[in-house]
């Protein structure tokens, strides 16, 4: 089989993986004579695929020959698909050939389980060693850790890669048991824990000896599939929050399930991927990481799924109207962050500027506050914005998220679709205003 065929098969099977940021590490230039490459802190997109996603890495599987049988996966043992495997040399040559032509920023290497996790990881290590040592490649490498791999091999892989990830795959142990019988929650969390400890230990070593080899310098991430199993958004968000806390992950990625296989355990193959839901999860993830929100504030047992028409922050705000309006001249940073239309940048500016001079609405606007939304939630020196007409409807109208109507609201939740979620913009405003 030639490289072209292998590339086609192995890129095709890898493409559903979402984690594609090449950022997070700013490494010095290639110092070893004859080496090549640097890793740039802000991600560089080399092209955009026809679905509008940034392509910056050569994202392939080492092989799609798999000993496991996860039902949501095209590569499962029992599926009849063409199979291929790169040799470590082929993969290294391809990466270098692409990198020199500036097609890519680096390599994202994942793999199915060929024979065993250890055997597969050894092949991955071989490929990365060729890249790093023979070609002197200093570009970005993200490697997937395969659950069940020997800790020593994992350690070795971690010194070759910039970032590592273990896919959490599905948002609960029950779903894993049902859809991925060869994987267990423990087998997934064990390498994740090892990587977390490895990074922590490495940063201590780096303080002591500057030349200690770096272990996963760009940190660890994970990803899970959304929409293949019945967990609520609330549950997924709680899990996400737990992962950030416990494993100090850099990112948690969500991947809207694209039905690729016919199975009674899974949504039918004509189901559209839940893109709006994925979008809301990323927004909520943002709130967890930069806005001091907790998962239980964003969603609850009583309201376990996202509002299709409002982003999670606006949704929180209209359900907590008793806390507003707040006085921007005195409110603390955390509270400012909760105002729709105020983000971390503008909140910081407000805190910095109000020490010097009194604030005004005009000034707030210059600091980047989106008054169209914020006006309903703030007072400035005791006053509301001149001419403000406050009503639940006007408030909601300013907040409704237009994405809901472009991505399609029926995709928010696969298992319960309340009738009121198929409204047009005006109906949505009425419905939301009533709920306020």
């Amino acid at each position, binding site marked *: 089989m030639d*490289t*072209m065929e292998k*590339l*086609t098969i192995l*890129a*095709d099977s890898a*493409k*559903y993986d979402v984690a594609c940021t090449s950022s997070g590490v700013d490494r010095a*230039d*290639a110092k070893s*004579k*004859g*080496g*090549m*490459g*640097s890793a*740039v802190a802000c991600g*560089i*997109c*080399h*092209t*955009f*695929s*026809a*679905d*509008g*996603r*940034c*392509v*910056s890495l*050569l*994202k392939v599987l080492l092989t799609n020959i798999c000993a496991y049988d996860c039902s949501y996966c095209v590569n499962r043992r029992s599926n009849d698909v063409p199979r291929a495997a790169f040799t470590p040399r082929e993969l290294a040559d*391809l990466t270098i*050939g*692409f990198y*020199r*032509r*500036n*097609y890519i*920023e680096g390599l994202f290497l994942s793999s199915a389980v060929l024979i065993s996790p250890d055997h597969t990881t050894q092949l991955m290590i071989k490929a990365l060693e060729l890249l790093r040592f023979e070609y002197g490649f200093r570009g970005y490498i993200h490697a997937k850790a395969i659950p069940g791999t020997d800790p020593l091999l994992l350690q070795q892989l971690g010194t070759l890669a910039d970032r590592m990830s273990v896919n959490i795959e599905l948002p609960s142990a029950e779903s894993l048991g049902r859809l991925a019988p060869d994987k267990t929650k423990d087998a997934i969390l064990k390498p994740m824990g090892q990587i977390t400890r490895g990074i922590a230990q490495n940063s201590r070593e780096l303080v002591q000896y500057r030349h200690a080899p770096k272990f996963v310098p760009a940190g660890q991430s994970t990803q899970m599939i959304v929409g293949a199993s019945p967990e609520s958004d609330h549950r997924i968000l709680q899990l996400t929050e737990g992962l950030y806390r416990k494993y100090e992950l850099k990112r948690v990625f969500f991947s809207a399930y*694209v039905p690729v296989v016919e199975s009674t355990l899974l949504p039918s193959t004509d189901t*559209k*991927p839940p*893109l709006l839901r994925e979008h809301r999860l*990323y*927004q909520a993830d*943002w*709130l967890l990481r930069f806005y001091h929100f907790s998962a239980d504030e964003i969603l609850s047992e009583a309201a376990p799924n996202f509002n299709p028409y409002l*982003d999670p*922050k*606006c949704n929180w705000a209209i359900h907590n109207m008793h806390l507003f309006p707040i006085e921007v001249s005195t409110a603390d940073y955390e509270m400012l962050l909760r105002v*729709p*239309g*105020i*983000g971390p940048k*503008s909140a910081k500016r407000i805190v910095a500027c109000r020490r010097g001079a009194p604030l005004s609405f005009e000034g707030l606007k210059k600091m980047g506050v*989106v008054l169209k939304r914020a006006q309903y939630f703030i007072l400035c020196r005791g006053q509301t914005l001149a001419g403000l007409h406050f009503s639940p409807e006007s408030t909601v109208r300013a907040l409704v*998220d237009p994405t809901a109507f472009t991505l399609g609201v029926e995709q928010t939740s696969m298992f319960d679709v309340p009738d009121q979620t198929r409204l047009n913009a005006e109906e949505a405003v009425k419905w939301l205003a009533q709920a306020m």
Partner: protein
Amino acid sequence: MAGTGDVIYLYDGTLEGMLCCIWTAFEQKENPIGIWCFDEEQPTLYRLRQVDTDPVLAARVQTGVRRRLGALAEQWVYDAFYSALEQRELAALEFLKLGFAKGPGVTSMVGHPQVAPLFAASRALHNEVHLLSGFIRFSDHDGALVSVIRPKNFVLPFLEPHFSRRFPYEKYMIYDETHRYALVAAGGQSRLVETEAVQLPPPDAVELQYRALWKQFYNTVEITARHNPKCRMTHVPKRYWACMDELRGEKKPLPVSVRQAIAAGELTLPDTDPASTITTPTQASLENARRAALPAE
């Protein structure tokens, strides 16, 4: 600054030359109505003043700007010179006139008519540099990497640090067809050379193989269930497509309304490439796209 305004400056088209024009305007208390390169000279009724380039004066202007207005202002003047801004020399002069009157605060007056053009030009330049650092494609010719680009701004000096970091031991050349300059680097040294045209031998078999592999990879990674060509358009402005192997020959998607009309037989298209009638995204729409990619605040 009061002073006569019926004069046009002529200079040699170098950065130092532009700085000397600025020095002259302050020194002579003049408000030139144009600052032209020698080779742009046209018949005119205005008085012409030829400004000689003196590196010492130029350096004085540069340090003066940095000391009194800060590094950002210095950067903007520098960027303006390399930008595609119309009458960039005059814009730089206007900016500095205001700057020396107002002090370092001038860089936050981005809405002011004497500041806005420079601010926008600098952003457009750096935006293009950022895009190109990803979109540039090299071909391997006997071990040397060669790329041809058609940028709006004079981006080569800004691309150099990035690619010299990326390829510290490679021989590489980036040829800017718009400005007819080449960035040539080898063995860790690089320089800019004025070049009328570059003659390249046809790509060899290995090169063609890599291009085909890349194109195949590109076509494979699209998730058809998420097909969204409009989104791609906002990310990769059409004018870069010709230089990108994987996009060359692809057509811009037609707006939905047009596609529906064609499907319904209400509309037929002329033979010309319909894509060319659709405007490329502006700076503003790129900004919007980037903002839209972030969750709402």
